[in-house]
Every structure is written in C-alpha cells, then in structure tokens.
C-alpha cells in the first residue's frame, strides 16, 4: 500500500483530493528538437483533464514518456506519491497507467481478444489461458456496451471497431490513469458519443483521464480541467469552467484565431463534373452525383460508409464494375491515378501514414512527387523550381519544419498532414477531393486549411469534402451527400442540412430502415 503524502497544489487548480499522477520538469530531446521542455502536470482521481496544444506541441511525446515507451531525459513522474520510472510499456501498465495512442497499435492477424491481452496473456499452468482471455474480452466489451466478435481477426474490422479494441486494451488493466490521444479522430458522431459514455463511466469509477484532442466542442463536453502545452513547454493549467474557448485557443496558439469555418461566399457555377452510376461488387452501389464549379460538396457518413472507397474509385485507384465520369461536359476514362491527376483531379487520402506521406523522404520530394512530369525530367537542373513550389505551399499551410530536406517522419502528426495537403494542392487541380483533411490538425492550422479551401473555391475549383466531423461539413459544404453502407442515402441543400437530419440519414434511419445496421 502506498502512503498518501501531502502535495503542493498543482498549478492553477485548487486541489483538495491529492493528485494520482504528478509530473515535474519532464524533458525529452530527439536528434534535433526538444520535444518536451520541463513539463509539469497533475491529475486527480475522477478528473478528466484535457491536454491541449498545437501540432507538435509535444502531447504525444508526453504520452509516450508517461507510458514507458520513451524514457524522459530529466524530470520525475510521481504516482500516488511515489516517484516511479518505467523501463517499458508493461511497467507503466502494471503501475496503472494505460493509453490509447494517436497511431493505431493493432496486430492485424491476431484475434480481437488476443489484441487486447497481447504481451501479457494470462497464463494457466505454464500455458496461455485462452478461454480466460476470451471470457474477459467478452466481459470487457459488455462493460463498454459495444458488441464485437472477440474471435474475429482485427484486419476484418472497420476503423471504428479497431479503435474500440484499443480502448478495450487500455481498460483491460485496472488502470488508475487512462490517456486518450486524439481518440475521436477516426470516429464518427455515433461512436464519439459511445466514447463519451465510456469516459464518464471511468470518471465515476474514480479513474483519472488525460484527454488529448483538437476539437474544442468535445473538450468542453467531457473535460473538467485543462493543461496547455506550447512548443514542448508547459503554458497554463486550470479548470475549464473558468476559461472561454477563445482564451484557451489564445493560450495554445499564443495569438487569437478567428472563427474556424470562414465560408467564402461564392455562387456555384456550371456543372464541372458528373459521376454516373458508380458500382463496385462489394464496396458501393449506384453512386451518382454532380459537382459544380466553385462548389464545396460535403460527403458525410459513418466511418466505414464507403466514402473513401467511392473517392478512390473516382481517382482511378480501384477498378469499377460500372460507372462513368464526365468532366467539363465530355466523358473521360480514368484508369489510373496518373490519368486522374492529368484530368485535374486530386485526392487527399485519409490515411496519412500509409496512403499519404513518404515518411523517410524529404518534405521537398513529398510535395513535388505528383507533379514531377511538370517540373521536368532532369530534376537536378530544376532544383530552384522544385524548392519554390514546395516553399510556396509549406508557407501557405504554415508548416512547422526547419528545412525542406527534413524527413517527414520527424514532423508531428498534424504537420505531416499538412505536407500531404500541400502535395495535392501543388497539382493545381480543378477538382480536389479532401478525405478527412483536418484529421488531427490543431485549431489554428485547421482554420488555415478552411481558409485555404475557401480560397480554392473562390478561384473556381470544385471541392469534395469527405469528413466525419459534422460541424466541418455543415460549416463548409454547399451541399451535403450522406452515405450509408456503400450507397447514397440522401442529399441535403445547405439550408436544410441540420445536424439531426444528417446524423439520422447517416445511420440509415428514414427510408430503407430494413438496412439500418
């Protein structure tokens, strides 16, 4: 049993109950950068603390140092009044600190149950106790009130389901501190609400929760207190009750940011692209829609609805069973991505790590990859041109990097996303498809991206915006198409797209109710 020693009150909060976890002077350096610089933080049992900061502020790094994945260069971690050090993730888990990390931690070929207990399977007489693992997994999901086949291989799950497996892993250990690093990034409205419920459960059970997110609405919904990091340094902490959204943003960005959804007023021009009767054996069926010049067409749907698949087919990545595309009046064949790019279509994929970025290549090469044809054959002699292009877009997106030859892997999650975005803007497209473009981007940059989308349409581009963030879709789109189970469920004009109706349509209510999952 640990003794509860008295504590200095953690900064900004009036602490009556002693904190369960307390950090002091935590620093972490990487090759070049100082990711964390003397960070202090403290949480109490049953407290939900929002950890906020811009991309690259050091949130994830802090999580990793807390969970024994990185070892801090200096500083102390005090758990229940005892200074602790973690050699590896197992130590942290045993001590009761678990996390759902920003990047997915999944073992595709293993079953759901095993994914939860991987690395610490309960043993029984020298061999793994499989029955027990499955039993406990079932109980766990029952407690979370989500239904998942524990024997399924996770590679067969949808992104959302995978996410719940990770959450289950974090909760499988009787944790006293649970850290959620951008848990809602891949989730759609419905799952997000389930997540909230789980968080409240934990809260009532007296677990301390560190909640990392770039979405302020959810921060103010679930969290009690906040801690702000900026450029790896502790900036402020306090109770959310005592602070406004604007003030919080100002704290983390170090300056004021204006409304997140600046809708540039453009009146949609003539029809630019028409998609007719797209069909795919397994993924989607008779998808047809029009896209006007200068229009932002929103695609909403539950994660797994098949939006990305449609877009990837439109971009020539997946062969169609049937379907046709007309661009600017004349029919075009799009057999491969190269042709799509040639026709002025750009697709910004949603899966940054695997589909978007070349992590161990320089920013420069990432950005110019799709437009090498235009830059020239002998790239050596075109260096200046290449640099100019890359710099132009990095600056417009306010990329945080030291030089253009830096490897993308060294950037924070959000900044990686910006590189991918820049890469596709550089193709100077007529139609740009943005699949979850602001996934994991901080509010400051998000505003930048939205401003940018505004600019794009005002220059006569047409934008397809696939997003699982309802406010974003409603805020930006002129029309909203809602997909459900691979088919277009409904289309809303801007005016009559109310959150309720859109969400309802997304979950398959209205009309074909027999299909509702």
């Amino acid at each position, binding site marked *: 049993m640990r003794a509860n020693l008295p504590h200095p009150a953690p900064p900004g909060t009036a602490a009556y109950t002693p904190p369960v976890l307390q950090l002091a002077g935590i620093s972490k350096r990487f090759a070049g950068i100082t990711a964390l610089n003397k960070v202090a933080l403290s949480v109490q049992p049953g407290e939900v603390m929002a950890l906020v900061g811009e991309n690259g502020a050091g949130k994830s790094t802090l999580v990793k140092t807390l969970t024994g994945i990185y070892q801090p260069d200096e500083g102390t971690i005090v758990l229940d009044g005892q200074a602790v050090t973690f050699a590896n993730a197992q130590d942290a888990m045993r001590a009761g600190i678990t996390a759902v990390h920003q990047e997915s931690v999944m073992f595709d070929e293993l079953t759901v149950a095993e994914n939860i207990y991987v690395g610490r399977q309960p043993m029984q007489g020298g061999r793994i106790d499989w029955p027990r693992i499955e039993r406990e997994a079932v109980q766990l999901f029952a407690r979370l009130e989500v239904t998942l086949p524990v024997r399924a291989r996770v590679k067969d799950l949808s992104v959302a389901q995978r996410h719940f497996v990770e959450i289950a892993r974090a909760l499988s250990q009787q944790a006293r501190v649970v850290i959620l690093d951008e848990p809602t990034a891949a989730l759609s409205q419905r799952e997000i609400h389930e997540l909230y419920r789980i968080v409240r459960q934990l809260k009532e059970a007296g677990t301390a929760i560190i909640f990392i997110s770039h979405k302020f609405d959810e921060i103010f919904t679930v969290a009690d207190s906040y801690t702000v990091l900026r450029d790896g340094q502790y900036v402020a902490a306090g109770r959310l009750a005592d602070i406004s959204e604007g003030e919080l943003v100002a704290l983390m960005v170090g300056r004021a940011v204006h409304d997140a959804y600046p809708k540039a007023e453009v009146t949609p021009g003539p029809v630019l692209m028409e998609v007719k009767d797209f069909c795919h054996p397994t993924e989607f069926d008779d998808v047809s829609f029009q896209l006007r010049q200068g229009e932002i067409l929103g695609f909403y749907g539950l994660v797994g609805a098949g939006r990305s698949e449609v877009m990837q087919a439109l971009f020539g990545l997946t062969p169609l069973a049937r379907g046709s595309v007309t661009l600017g009046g004349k029919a075009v064949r799009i057999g491969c991505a190269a042709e799509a790019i040639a026709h002025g279509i750009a697709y910004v994929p949603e899966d940054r790590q695997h589909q978007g*970025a070349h992590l161990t290549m320089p920013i420069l090469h990432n950005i110019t990859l799709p437009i090498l044809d235009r830059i020239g054959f002998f*790239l050596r002699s075109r260096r200046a041109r290449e640099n100019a292009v890359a710099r132009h877009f990095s600056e417009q997106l306010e990329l945080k990097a030291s030089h253009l030859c830096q490897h993308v892997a060294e950037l924070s999650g959000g900044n990686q996303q910006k590189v991918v975005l820049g890469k596709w803007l550089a193709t100077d497209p007529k139609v740009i498809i943005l699949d979850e473009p602001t996934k994991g981007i901080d509010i400051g940059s998000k505003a930048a991206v939205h401003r940018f989308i505004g600019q794009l349409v005002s220059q006569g581009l047409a934008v397809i915006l696939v997003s699982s963030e309802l406010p974003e879709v409603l805020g930006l789109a002129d029309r909203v198409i809602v997909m459900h189970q691979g088919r277009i469920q409904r289309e809303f004009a801007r005016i009559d797209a109310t959150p309720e109706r859109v969400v309802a349509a997304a979950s398959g209510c209205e009309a074909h109710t027999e299909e509702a999952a």
Partner: protein
Amino acid sequence: MQATHSSRYTIHDRPGFRIKALLGKWETLLALLFVVAFLANGILLPTFLDPYNLADGTFNFSEKALIALPMALLIICREIDISVSGILALSSVAIGVAHTSGLPPEVLLPVALAAGTACGLLNGVLVTRFALPSIVVTIGTVSLFRGLASVVLGDKAFTGYPQLMADWGQGYFFGFIPREFVVLLVFAALFAVVLHCTRWGRRIYAIGNNPVAARFAGIEVNRYRLVLFMLTGAMAGLAAYLLTGRIGSTRPNIAMGWELEVITMVILGGVSIAGGAGTIGGVMLAVLTLGTVTYGLSLANIPGIYMTIVIGLLLLVTIALPRLLRGRKVAK
C-alpha cells in the same frame, strides 16, 4: 495560386552544412575503407601497385558489378532478385545455342540481352500480377532457370565462341584498360544519372519508401517493378555475354552462387534492404572495396575460403559499426 502570405515559421531550403553529417554518410565510411584497404595492399604486397595488375584485378568483379547496378535499383524499390545467376546461366546457354545454330557473332549480344530480359519478365510478371514477394518467386525461378540450362546442355558444354566475344570478355582498350571495366564504368554512370538526376529515379525512391502512397501519387508502381526486373534480367544477360566471352565456354553451373556476392555488394554499398535508400556511388565504392580486399588476399595466396570469412565480417562490421557508434537509438 495567389501571393504567399508568409508563415509563422521560417523554412530553409536545406540544412546548414554540418561536417558531422558529411562524416556520418555511408559513402564517406566506404571511401575511407577503400583507401585503407588500398594502402594496406600497396604497402604489404609488392606486386599490388603495378598498373597492369590493378587493371587485371578488375576482371574479377566487373560482371558481378554490372548485375549489382540494377540489383541496387530493385532493392531500393523493396524488391530483390535471387535468380540473377540462373538468368546468367540461361542467357549463356542461349548464346551457345544461337552460336552453334550458326548465327553471326554480331547478333549474339542481342540474343543474350533478349534471353535475360525474358527471364526478368517472368520474374516481374509473377511478382506484379500475382502480388507475390519477390524473394519467394526468385528462389523458385533460380532453380528453374538453372534447371532449363542443364536440360539444354545435358552433360555437354558449349565452347569455341567467336573472337568478337573474346575481345569484349578478355580484351583491353589501349593495351591495358580492360574493356569489361570500361563497360562497367559507363553503365555505372548511366545508372547513377537515372537514379539520382531524373524523375524515374525519384519515383523509384518513392516506391521503395512507401508503395501505397506512391500509387496514390499516380505512380504506376507495378510498371516500374516490372521494368526493373526486366532491366535486371537484361544486365544479367550482358554479364553472361561478357563472362562467356571471357571464359569461352558455357556450363550449367556457370556463375554458381553469384547472387549472394552481388547482393553483398549492393548492401555493403549502403542500399537499405528495407527499400527507399541507397546510392549508385555507394555501390560502386563497395564494389571497388571488395575488389581490392579480395584481390589483395588472393595476391597474398590466402585461400578463398578465408576470403568468404573476411567478406562476411566486412559486411557485418560495416553495418554494425555505425549502430554501435551511434548507440541504440529509439525506433520510430
């Protein structure tokens, strides 16, 4: 687009020049190694520095190095070809068949190239069409190719090749620069330009670095793979032409086990087996270093088997040393 509103962060074009970065480069390490080996040989072995000997020494690795060039591209592209020595054998047989069936000497080179390319095509098709891992495919095709060679030859051998081939295989320019070596240098330059200065090369790196993202960026990943396999086959065919010309005979066990030596050259050259990194300069440095070391050893009449030990250790040390110096770093 419209005028850039400058960002809050300043981004330089390239990192400031740091001597440490230069020293940290693999090529620097290799160059150092090469110089050391060269000097050591020069000091210890009286016969080493004789220009004629040095020139002749290049015969030992020229053909292998010619295959190492496309192999480097393949490995950068996350593929590998274990079957090169099999291709070489089969191409050599093709030359023999063509020659014995009375074709003129001039067409023998095209024949070799064609045969090699065909083998490469088979590898490429199996890898790209059926999405098979190349190491698996080529483990299969290597015994297929060699097998076919021995099917054609039985227990016979092709000999009595035309002078033209001998000239290219054994001949010299200006009396002492081996033609094979010149051919190698020309191709090395060619490959270096393609890989480092053109958009083809850039795309090869991109594919090796992240094939999916490359596909999303509009690169015809499979076409590049296919072409690289065919290129490797063709270069193996060229090597077959030169080797056959040099030794003037064809047997099914010709060039047995070369694949591993070639791959060793490439890896020692700093090409990452995980793909996406490596330079032709590095590979050529590795080739020269290996050439120097082995030639030195054989001048000292050290049995070949000790050479394999030395080469193995060389490989292990050169890849382990940087890690040991840098200490174990956190994997990303």
